[in-house]
């Protein structure tokens, strides 16, 4: 369908004889902020890894900007933030950004400018020349955010973006995501923080045991207010089984 940046159809993935994804389907429109929520082990990170080409699904299709995730040209259009940030411990934040910028096709001048700007934005400018091996989880997560935004991608794929961040950094991230959404970026993110999802998202999908159990615009799916989302989430994930 026109205007859809992410299209996932009947995605299936098996890990060591266990079906992790059992026909996941959803789509994300251009400029949409899309929340992907579900309990632990539901298949959120597996879906995201398939979307960025780390996992090869057994069947189903993934199209992002009309391209397959195996195509490096597709990955030039996305910025990915992993759930657990891990970087080369012997490099400094500045070197990490220059490295990722270089493999993202950025030229020297814009890379230098963007690296400085983003380190300022995530509050890591004073640590720019310290080796990452000495950093806490939250500091590494900030570097993660900077690298995801570095090449100004059209689409952001964020796996638990607020994980490990302190309240101030969370607030900065929320504001940043709002600003990016206003600028027309497509944002896909998984999260456990339902208040955040309710606050930021235009649409959501709830995944449970490898299947999407509910999907659609947030207004239609839950109405207004994060309390409703939380109740809905608990009912879908837990309550109906009881």
């Amino acid at each position, binding site marked *: 369908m026109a205007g859809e940046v992410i299209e996932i159809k009947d995605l299936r993935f098996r*890990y060591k004889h266990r079906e992790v994804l059992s026909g996941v389907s959803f789509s994300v429109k251009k400029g949409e902020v899309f929340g992907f929520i579900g309990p632990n082990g539901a298949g959120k990170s*597996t879906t995201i*890894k398939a979307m*960025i*080409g*780390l*996992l*090869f699904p057994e069947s189903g299709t993934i199209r992002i900007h009309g391209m397959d995730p195996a195509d*490096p*040209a597709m*990955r*030039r259009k*996305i910025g*990915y933030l*992993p759930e*657990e*940030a*891990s*970087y*080369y411990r*012997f*490099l400094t934040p500045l*070197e990490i950004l220059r*490295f*990722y910028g*270089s*493999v*993202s*096709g950025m030229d020297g001048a814009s890379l230098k400018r963007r690296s400085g700007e983003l380190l300022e934005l995530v509050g890591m400018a004073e640590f720019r020349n310290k*080796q990452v091996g000495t950093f806490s989880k939250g500091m590494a997560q900030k570097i*993660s955010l900077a*690298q995801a935004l570095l090449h100004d991608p059209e689409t952001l*794929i964020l796996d638990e973006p607020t994980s490990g961040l302190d309240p101030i950094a969370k607030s900065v991230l929320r504001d940043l995501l709002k600003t990016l959404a206003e600028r027309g970026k497509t944002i896909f993110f998984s999260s456990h923080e339902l208040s955040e999802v309710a606050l930021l998202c235009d649409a959501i999908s709830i995944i449970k045991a490898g299947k999407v159990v509910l999907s659609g615009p947030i207004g239609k799916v839950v109405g207004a207010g994060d309390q409703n989302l939380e109740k809905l989430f608990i009912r879908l994930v837990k309550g109906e089984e009881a």
Partner: protein
Amino acid sequence: MRNVAAIAGVVVKEIFRKKDFYVAFVFTGIVLFYAARLRFYDVGNTYRYLMDIGLGLGMSFAALLTATLAARQFPAEMQGRTCHVLLSKAVSRREYVAGKFLGSFAAGASCYLLFFGVLLLFTLTKTHQVSFAAAAQAYVLFCMGLMLLTALCTALGFVMTPAANATVSLTLYLMISLYGVTLRQAAEKQEGVLRPVLLAVNLLIPHFGFFDMRQRLIHGWDPISWKLAALLCVYASAYSAVFLAIGWLLFRKKNIS
């Protein structure tokens, strides 16, 4: 090529920012310094012993550092999840394998250059004349052997743990370096089915011993013909390409979780 160079650059930084290289370098320096002060009952030409010890240590440490570096590249990235972000960028898996290989090889060749350069300076101070051509050949050909070893470790890195990979690769490297040249002679002495089997093995294994020019440097012999040196480079490149192709095939569709 830009992606390959960027990935290789990170691997080179890794070896010079960890202490392994400096430990090996200082150890070699101490052994050489101590050996230079020894007096072997007025035996002349002791520089030959020094060169033998120095080249042996330099080559061994360069092979050890290169093999361990190349062997840990992919498993460490899988375990540390550093490859998740890298492979989410516009980097193909072919570029990833090539970058890791090139970086490990460049790191090993740079380490050996330092060992080799210091040793040459050391022997020159002992008034031993070294042919520049022979020295250049010895360096380049040893690096070709390192390239082969790096490609082998890179390929095995997709199926083995770093420790198992380094052990298997270095054992093969050592055994083939020491006994590879005698394999053909041994095969020709055999009868029955063992003879063609050993001849086939001799033909298939990468002969690391071809790249060891130590004796020419130690004894001041002439360099080998440049045509032969070029053929040896082609030989190493062909084997490396085969190992890298195997590595790429193993990694091409590998799930990274």
